[in-house]
């Protein structure tokens, strides 16, 4: 089965928000703070502009609460008295001409009495930088298991390390945008987004409306990667406020610069490890401290931190684990959801650290991991017993074998002897990723989904989960078609419109195929039941029953499903003990790199990605998820760097924020173990995020082995590598 909307995309017929041409629509524009922190003293409008022809909205025009409601209500829709980060929205403008509204935005000066910003989480805030409690900490979390101090004291060796990861920009190719209009008293907001009901929740709060007074519709979405999880609520509210003020449709589409400067990034993190091993290199204690930079408002930071610390000790067996995490307020634009959601940061630290531990223990990195990988029946840091039948050691062995590790190591040694400049190395990472919301998150979401029988005999899946490239439409179609014995062409997927579809939760957290896909199956079963058919009814029986039912009653038959946790999955939010996720994907990635000692540039020359994510629902889509995630991970490892100054991103252009091109990447070789997971549709587990957890440590470990340095920070740019290389001893290029 081919991607459902594939041909529309290949021919350019797919309609993204900027492709929707609406008669009489105005262009909206956001006027933002230039200061990282301070009190707004005055807003000056250049008298040379005719302001009477421009719609201007400020915080006083917000009919409801001035809050972008998500986890906490701390983030304003438009700053009122104070600003807390550069590029914080203060005013909104609209005009029929995009050119006029752009110039008008430049003709406004927001005067701010500056207050001292807090920008660096590696040093504690000074009293005059405090903006939240007594320490600027948004959230603190801890995981405790066993007795870490005693185990460290008794360990044969204790190995310490500190690791840092930088902010990462999503660079979805379609920038963010929203279109809003009012129709019969209902505010419609349509645009590029991952979570229609997040926007809905925020909109009824800020617009002061009943739930049916606002309708959120997803337009085709040109990539998200988490970047369109929370920020779209902000743009949606802005567009809605302008449309209410102007009484005309309003479209806001960010240009690339605004999108990069103002929207969220992956949380920068500092992770410290203190690891005890016994004489055989077995982990006896892991003491881990995680600090994340949350930016100026809470947004999703507590849950990013949560996922980060839960994954921080890696896919390993260890009796004594202590993980402390905190995420801090700083005066940079809020950091937010990005594929992996905290786990890539902690996995980078852990897997880089494992290589350091291996060296200290005198083991090779493969052997150290073989001795410590979780076996079925072992427990994770939160005390979750892993019994899913996946052989994690076999995955590692397969990745190593496919990569040709042993033969290549010999060739690399020969290269180092004969070439003055080129060095090659192999690097490895083992990792896991929990699918679905953390802990009791899925229970609290209580997702609902419908499958309706249409009068023509087809069925329609109604969910709030959206297509953003990852394949939701195709996967849902395949699941429903298989469950009911129908052809894919007999399955329709409803537009994600909060006026038409139930809340099946956000399209995030590797949950769509596994959790919502399972709801598709259950709703199909419920539809069959409501049609009065036996559990094995398929195909023609379904078709006929759907048509007859519609004829007889004049109504469609709707099968319904609501999330229930798999039996025996228990989590305690107070103690952070229990089953953090219903299921995990497991990965073992191997990178081969070449470092050019003339330029200290690193090129990934081969990449093997082996993972077990349960049954693979669609081979091409699944491989594409892995390859795309690996590419993003390689970019994060080597070249993607946000350059900050006074809380503002300096390189908010694609010319200066560098992502990999086709010429920078080797073919990504993808292999799946397929141990079915009974809780998922057809045995599938979540996949979308897993592939970004492994590439950075695998690549950096390979660089470390290629030239004998010990990098601790990404992106490992040539400049950073040069500094490391010069500090290392005896590491000069041989001159032929």
């Amino acid at each position, binding site marked *: 089965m*081919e*991607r459902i*909307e*594939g*041909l*529309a*995309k*290949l*021919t*350019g*017929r*797919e*309609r*993204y928000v*900027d*492709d929707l*041409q609406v008669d009489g629509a105005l262009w909206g524009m956001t006027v933002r703070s230039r200061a990282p922190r301070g009190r707004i003293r005055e807003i000056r409008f250049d008298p040379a502009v005719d302001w009477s022809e421009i719609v201007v909205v400020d915080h006083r025009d917000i009919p409801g609460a001035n809050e972008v409601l998500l986890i906490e209500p701390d983030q304003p829709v438009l700053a009122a008295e104070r600003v807390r980060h550069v590029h914080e929205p203060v005013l909104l403008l609209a005009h029929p*001409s995009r*050119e*006029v509204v752009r110039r008008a935005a430049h003709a406004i000066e927001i005067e701010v009495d500056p207050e001292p910003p807090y920008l660096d989480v590696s040093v504690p805030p000074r009293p005059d930088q405090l903006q939240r409690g007594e320490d600027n900490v948004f959230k603190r979390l801890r995981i405790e298991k066993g007795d870490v101090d005693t185990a460290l004291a008794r360990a044969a060796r204790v190995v310490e390390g500190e690791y840092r990861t930088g902010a990462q920009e*999503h*660079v*979805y*190719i*379609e*920038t963010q945008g929203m279109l809003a209009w009012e129709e019969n008293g209902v505010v419609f907001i349509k645009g590029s987004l991952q979570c229609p009901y997040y926007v809905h929740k925020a909109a009824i709060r800020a617009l002061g409306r009943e739930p049916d007074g606002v309708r959120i519709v997803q337009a*085709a*979405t*040109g*990539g*998200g*990667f988490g970047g369109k999880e929370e920020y779209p609520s902000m743009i949606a509210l802005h567009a809605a406020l302008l449309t209410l003020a102007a009484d005309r449709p309003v479209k806001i589409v960010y*240009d*690339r610069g605004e999108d990069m400067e103002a929207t969220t990034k992956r949380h920068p993190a500092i992770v410290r490890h203190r690891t005890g091993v016994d004489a055989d290199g077995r982990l006896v204690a892991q003491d881990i401290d995680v600090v994340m930079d949350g930016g100026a408002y809470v947004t999703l930071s507590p849950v990013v931190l949560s996922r980060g610390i839960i994954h921080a000790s890696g896919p390993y067996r260890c009796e004594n684990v202590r993980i402390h995490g905190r995420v801090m307020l700083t005066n940079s634009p809020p950091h937010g959801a990005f594929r992996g959601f905290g786990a890539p940061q902690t996995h980078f630290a852990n897997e880089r650290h494992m290589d350091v531990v291996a060296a200290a223990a005198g083991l090779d990195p493969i052997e150290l991991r073989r001795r410590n990988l979780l076996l079925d029946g072992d427990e994770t840091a939160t005390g979750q017993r892993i019994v899913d039948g996946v052989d994690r050691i076999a995955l590692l062995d397969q990745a190593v074998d496919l990569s040709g590790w042993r033969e290549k190591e010999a060739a690399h040694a020969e290269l180092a002897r004969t070439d003055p400049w080129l060095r090659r190395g192999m690097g490895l990472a083992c990792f896991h990723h929990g699918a679905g919301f953390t802990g009791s998150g899925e229970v609290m979401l209580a997702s609902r989904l419908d499958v309706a029988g249409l009068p023509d005999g087809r069925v329609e899946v109604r969910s709030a989960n959206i297509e*953003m*490239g*990852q*394949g939701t439409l195709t996967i849902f179609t395949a699941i429903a078609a298989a469950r009911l014995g129908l052809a894919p062409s007999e399955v329709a997927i409803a537009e994600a419109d909060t006026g038409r579809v139930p809340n099946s939760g956000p399209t995030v957290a590797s949950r769509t195929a596994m959790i919502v896909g399972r709801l598709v199956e259950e709703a199909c079963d419920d539809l069959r039941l409501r049609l009065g058919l036996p559990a094995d009814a398929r195909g023609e029986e379904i078709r006929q029953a759907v048509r007859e039912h519609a004829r007889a009653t004049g109504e469609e038959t709707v099968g319904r499903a609501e999330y229930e946790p798999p039996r025996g999955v228990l989590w305690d939010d107070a103690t952070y003990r229990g089953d953090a996720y219903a299921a995990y994907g497991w990965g073992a990635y191997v990178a081969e790199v070449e470092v050019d000692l003339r330029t200290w540039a690193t090129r990934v020359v081969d990449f093997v990605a082996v993972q077990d994510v349960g049954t693979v629902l669609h081979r*091409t*889509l699944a*491989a*594409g998820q*892995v*390859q*795309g*995630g*690996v*590419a*993003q991970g390689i970019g994060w490892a080597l070249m993607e760097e946000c350059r900050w100054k006074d809380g503002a991103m300096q390189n908010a*252009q*694609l*010319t200066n924020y560098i*992502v990999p*091109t*086709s*010429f*920078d*990447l080797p*073919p*990504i070789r993808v292999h799946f173990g397929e141990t079915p997971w009974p809780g998922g549709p057809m045995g599938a587990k979540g996949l979308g995020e897993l592939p970004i957890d492994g590439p950075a440590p695998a690549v950096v470990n390979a660089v470390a082995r290629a030239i004998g340095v010990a990098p601790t920070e990404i992106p490992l740019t040539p400049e950073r590598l040069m500094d490391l290389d010069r500090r290392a001893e005896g590491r000069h290029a041989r001159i032929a």
Partner: protein
Amino acid sequence: MHGSPELPLSFTLNGDAVSVEADPAARLLDLLRYDLGMTGTKEGCGEGECGACTVWIDGLPADSCLVPAFQVDGREVRTIESVDPARLGPLLSSGATQCGACTPGVVMTGLWILENPGLLRSHAIRELMAGNLCRCTGYDGIIEGIEAALGTRS
């Protein structure tokens, strides 16, 4: 609004003669998308980096965000709207598109390679595609699709 007189221009668009008056500050991308309503060509960056706005001008790929509309006067422009869907099967099967935002540009460059296979004597497909950033696929689906369409991949 901007006080500049519109510039008349005539060019061939996907085989058809077109005559329009254009804002002198309009880019070819703006002319296509907002004046002619041909929204298949996408804007990804406005700085000639991402290639989402790739069209052909006189048979060569160009970033339409870096071309003033008035410069296509007398030229031949080809956009994604001209592409025969029947030619896209290999790209569909290989997973060349995910979110679709880079895709029209990818297809226009890919098609140029398909129509000029001699390029591959001096260039690798990965080098020729380097002007089209894709954030979803890691490029494998794109490269494999082009290879399949060329018949160089089994």
